[in-house]
């Protein structure tokens, strides 16, 4: 699935780095706890979260993630957007809740290739 397909499945608005929307992504994770993302996430390219602060972008950057989806219509600040721009991470915002967002992506074929359990 490409990042632009993620946006389409989630009816999401891309907030920055739309130039990277053709990037292929093969797995995703959903969490509001960045500690857990750092500890348990393996090679996941998409992070879905309802947490909105600059450390979400930093965490994704350290984990080599390509895309962050803010669920529940959360609105990142300009500071967050510019950090992501610099880090080359696509940001998007969806009105769907976390559970629905994850379910929609999973049902559309974005699965986790052996990373379903810790």
């Amino acid at each position, binding site marked *: 699935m490409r990042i632009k397909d993620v946006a389409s499945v989630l009816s999401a608005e891309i907030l920055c780095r739309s130039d990277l929307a053709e990037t292929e992504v093969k797995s995703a994770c959903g969490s509001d706890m960045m500690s857990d993302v750092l500890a348990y996430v393996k090679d996941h390219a998409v992070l879905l979260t309802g947490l909105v*602060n*600059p450390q979400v972008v*930093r965490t994704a950057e*350290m984990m080599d993630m390509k895309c962050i989806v803010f669920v529940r219509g959360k609105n990142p600040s300009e500071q967050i957007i510019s950090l992501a721009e610099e880090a080359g991470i696509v940001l998007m915002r969806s009105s769907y809740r976390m559970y629905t967002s994850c379910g929609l992506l999973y049902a559309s074929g974005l699965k986790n290739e052996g990373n379903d359990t810790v």
Partner: protein
Amino acid sequence: MNETLKYVYEVDGSDFMSAGVASADVKKNLKMLGFSGDLIKKVSIAMYEGEINMVIHANGGIATVEVSDDCVSIVLADKGPGIEDIELAMSEGYSTAPDRIRALGFGAGMGLPNMKKYCDEFKIETELGVGTTVYMKVYNS
């Protein structure tokens, strides 16, 4: 690269939102120096966890990173309160982080164990009321 490169960062303890600046810079430099993605990820995660810890628990400190062809060495030194029980602090799920930090997505008690997991060598020296220094090494295999 024949000589060892040294990077020193002052980690600002007053602003949680800007934590990670040093780790992001190290990541960028290692990429530029042509290190493997695997090594860069290990160093980035270990250092970022450490940087976050310094901001949460110790009001910042100094991060020193030395890079040679075969090893990246990270020393994180703070003048915080020190760690009372290292064994307990190293156990997964144990954290003394306040609720306001948990609300920001951190403080799950995974930081120290995660740092150890991503390093080839890991050592903590701490003294109550004096501070903590974490030594980490990741080898370029």
